[in-house]
């Protein structure tokens, strides 16, 4: 035991946490490069998202195709996930932790896949039920462009029971 650990001679963080056997710490040049690169990626992706947002705004001045707008929104969602990946992996250093630890964080978050599908489907189903059984809800909230035929003889809002 010639190289036995001696806390009194240690000035590294290991002095306080001897159970941690190595620390990931990059030199200044590598670090700077990585932070700048990530900052640029986050900024460029945000600008791309905003550009798509403005494009959707521009489209809404006309009568855009529902699925085209949905596609653009889907692209924005994917760009957001990319941003989240860079923040967690680089800024929060999760990408530098050992794999087992990463998995204890990432695997539980996979529940979100089910949450999102299940609860959005629930909302969609509630809407369908309301439109089927509550005609007043459908008539008062359905956007005019979605109605099959413009209701010419529809009574004014105040007159309806």
């Amino acid at each position, binding site marked *: 035991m010639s190289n036995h650990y001696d806390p009194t001679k240690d000035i590294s963080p290991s002095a306080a946490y001897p159970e941690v056997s190595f620390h990931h710490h990059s030199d*200044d040049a590598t670090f700077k490069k990585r932070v700048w690169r990530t900052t640029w990626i986050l900024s460029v992706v945000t600008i791309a998202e905003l550009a798509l947002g403005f494009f959707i705004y521009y489209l809404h001045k006309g009568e855009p195709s529902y699925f085209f707008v949905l596609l653009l929104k889907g692209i924005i969602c994917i760009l957001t996930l990319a941003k989240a990946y860079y923040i967690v992996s680089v800024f929060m250093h999760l990408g530098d932790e050992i794999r087992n630890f990463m998995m204890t964080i990432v695997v539980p978050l996979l529940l979100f896949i089910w949450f999102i599908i299940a609860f959005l489907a629930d909302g969609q189903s509630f809407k369908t039920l309301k439109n089927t059984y509550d005609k007043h809800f459908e008539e008062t909230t359905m956007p005019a462009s979605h109605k099959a035929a413009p209701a010419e003889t529809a009574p004014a809002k105040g007159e309806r029971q």
Partner: protein
Amino acid sequence: MAHEATVNTHRTKWWSGGKSPFNIEYGKVMMWYFLMSDAFTFGAFLISYGTSRFSQNFWPDPNVVFNALPGAGHANLPLVFVSIMTFILIISSVTMVLAVHAGHNRNKEEVQKWLIWTIVGGLAFLGCQALEWHHLLTSEHATLVNGQIELITQTTRHNPWGQLVHGPELTAALQNSSVHTLATLAEEHHLSAATHAELMQTPKDQLVQLIANSPDVHIREKGPAAFGGFFYGITGFHGFHVFSGVIINIVMLLMTRANVFENKGHYLMIEKAGLYWHFVDLVWVFVFLCFYLI
């Protein structure tokens, strides 16, 4: 016996104590698990917002709701103010990374410098949010309520972000409204050079025609009731996280100044505060997506 002892020395016993199987100190592991649980809280809020939104035939267009910029008056500038807020938060996340790195180098001056910039960024974000909330809570919009026009703001009970009202329905609603409301509307949208008092003396039919024929006046129905509650609830919960992050960073700054970390021999506490701060930025990325972009 001798054979078994040799085998054991070649095998690292990760789970028998003395070593961290995850190779991180306890505090950091626990900060990660706290943040994971917080992610579920925010996720639950945002998903319930999604459920409500999917259950409606109509949902307000964010470009209609968030189109103001402080100091720009009535100019229609969708997405501009929230982009500024987003960039403030991204930049303050970068300065936090720099503070953590300076801590690794045990450079006290640099740690203080970057912590101060992070705190400034956090306060700037909170200031922007305060301006945005103030604008939404106080700016009145002409809205069709029970057959007449009323001036309402966005609260947790109602909001003016429903569908546009056109044609005969609009004219009828204007006819049912008070002269005072019509005069206020005409004055706000600069439809006439007359003062409010003069407009009050104008015949009602004339005011109705003036407003109904103006392309600048957009009168909407009331929007889905849940919109305001979700907006204030979720951005408020996020803003509360930013606020507590700023407090944590101020505490870190004071501890650095008092040489607490210098005497300990390491700045690992800054790293944990940094994790929390980055998480706040991470959540904003999703709030920005759900409320402003899609």
